[in-house]
């Protein structure tokens, strides 16, 4: 059970927020007219539903200790890479290399997190998987669009596996006077990233005028970006008591997380645009793309991990 009081507060806060969000979402659904507004509300409600699911999974992961988090994020990596590969221009010749990615690289990477082997965990994919998968692909003998296909597989591994695996790796950080193994840092990261996401969305809907990158993500505006990042930073600052940081440090970290999350969302959007879909879930209605939900976490997790590891 949870005997850490701060963790309990964090989970309590998440639960209260979700209950409030659900109530507001349902009230809006019943009161709003007009197809455009209705779509927006449906989008928000879908996100809230996804958060309930994520929070429940998170709670279970935390209750089972580090192992639970490792398994949870390994599964997230499988589902995310699955979506990534579906949209990628891989060819028949890449089948074996992809099988390696799914059934060797993913289990190995998360096993390394599980046994807390930081030295190998941090280079296994960028060095060994990077070189070996390219070799495996070249052995298949297909040279057409070789660089494009190899790069796609490697990008998929870096984004969906390497970056994601930094989230549970937060539990193995060794910080003076702070027990990272309880998962509070992980929860801090996810709360700030998700809050930044949704607050940017909300501020963008309320005040958004000038678009940041109209060709990539028409919903992202400067107003939404500023409001969302500022609010997420405030929220993260308010959670300093659950982290090894003092309030100023928590503010700087939250700002960093929000900015990295924004960059992640933008880059993953560009990949989607390149493949001609609006979102990974939109390709398959009702499926709800995992990659759509974690795109901002992808960039924030490794940066948060390394900055924390360097300074604390």
């Amino acid at each position: 059970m949870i005997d850490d009081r701060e963790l309990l507060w964090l989970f309590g806060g998440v639960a209260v927020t979700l209950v409030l969000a659900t109530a507001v979402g349902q009230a809006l659904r019943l009161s709003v007219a007009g197809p455009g507004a209705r779509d927006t509300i449906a989008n928000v409600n879908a996100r809230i539903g996804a958060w309930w699911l994520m929070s429940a999974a998170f709670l279970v992961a935390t209750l089972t200790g580090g192992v639970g988090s490792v398994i949870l994020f390994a599964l997230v990596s499988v589902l995310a890479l699955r979506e990534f590969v579906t949209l990628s221009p891989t060819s028949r010749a890449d089948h074996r290399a992809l099988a390696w990615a799914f059934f060797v690289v993913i289990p190995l990477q998360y096993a390394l997190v599980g046994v807390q082997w930081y030295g190998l965990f941090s280079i296994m994919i960028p060095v060994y998987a990077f070189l070996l998968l390219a070799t495996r692909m070249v052995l298949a003998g297909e040279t057409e669009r070789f660089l494009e296909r190899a790069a796609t597989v490697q990008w998929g591994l870096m984004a969906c596996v390497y970056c994601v695996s930094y989230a549970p790796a937060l539990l193995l950080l060794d910080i003076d006077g702070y027990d990272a193994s309880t998962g509070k840092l992980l929860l801090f990261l996810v709360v700030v990233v998700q809050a930044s996401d949704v607050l940017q969305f909300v501020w963008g809907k309320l005040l958004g005028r000038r678009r940041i990158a109209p060709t990539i993500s028409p919903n992202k505006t400067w107003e939404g970006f500023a409001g969302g990042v500022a609010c997420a930073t405030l929220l993260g600052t308010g959670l300093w008591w659950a982290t090894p940081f003092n309030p100023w440090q928590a503010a700087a970290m939250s700002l960093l997380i929000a900015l990295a999350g924004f960059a992640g969302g933008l880059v993953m959007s560009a990949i989607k645009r390149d493949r001609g879909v609006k979102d990974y879930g939109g390709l398959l209605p009702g499926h709800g793309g995992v990659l759509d939900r974690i795109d901002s976490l992808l960039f924030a997790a490794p940066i948060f991990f390394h900055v924390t590891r360097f300074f604390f």
Partner: protein
Amino acid sequence: MIGRLVAALARLVAGGYVNWRQPPSTEPCVYFANHTSHLDFVLLWSYLPPELRRRTRPVAARDYWERGPLRRYLSTRIFRALLIDRSGPDARAAVDRMAEGLAEGDSLILFPEGTRGSGEGIAPFKAGLYHLCAAHPGLELVPVSMENLNRVLPKGEFIPVPMVSRVIFGEALSLRDGEPKEEFLARAREAVEMLRGEES
């Protein structure tokens, strides 16, 4: 129990978007689909509601599914596959076996192309579908389109790569009175092709 596990696993590896154009029928019927992968029928079968799944038998090639203890266990115990001889000259016997299966109240999963394709197009349908309908008047055929399974587990591979697929169950059709064989087979094939091309 194991059946449910296999179904859940199939959906985890190859599941994705699924759509029913009309609710699944509780009467015995034939689901027919394009064929690109050994996973085709497993995934199709896993999408059926559990109570229908128990009453639905895939029609599969004996030479493949009787090789090795695992395949034999899966095909006989879990899927209750209706195994037929592809190599034998006796197409009649295969149709008879299918008709028997239907008469016992089971539905069938059938791949009328007869063999797995590359995923590019749908091959012409074999006549078995027609003969089955002729032997079983009023039989309902549900066209099913399956996309991307050829990338999950292509011909010649034995380890599936998880990918998102798209499966659409179309509106049932049946053999019209006096409809010529070629016309019927072309119409059935087109029904699958239409689902493939459609926007979801």
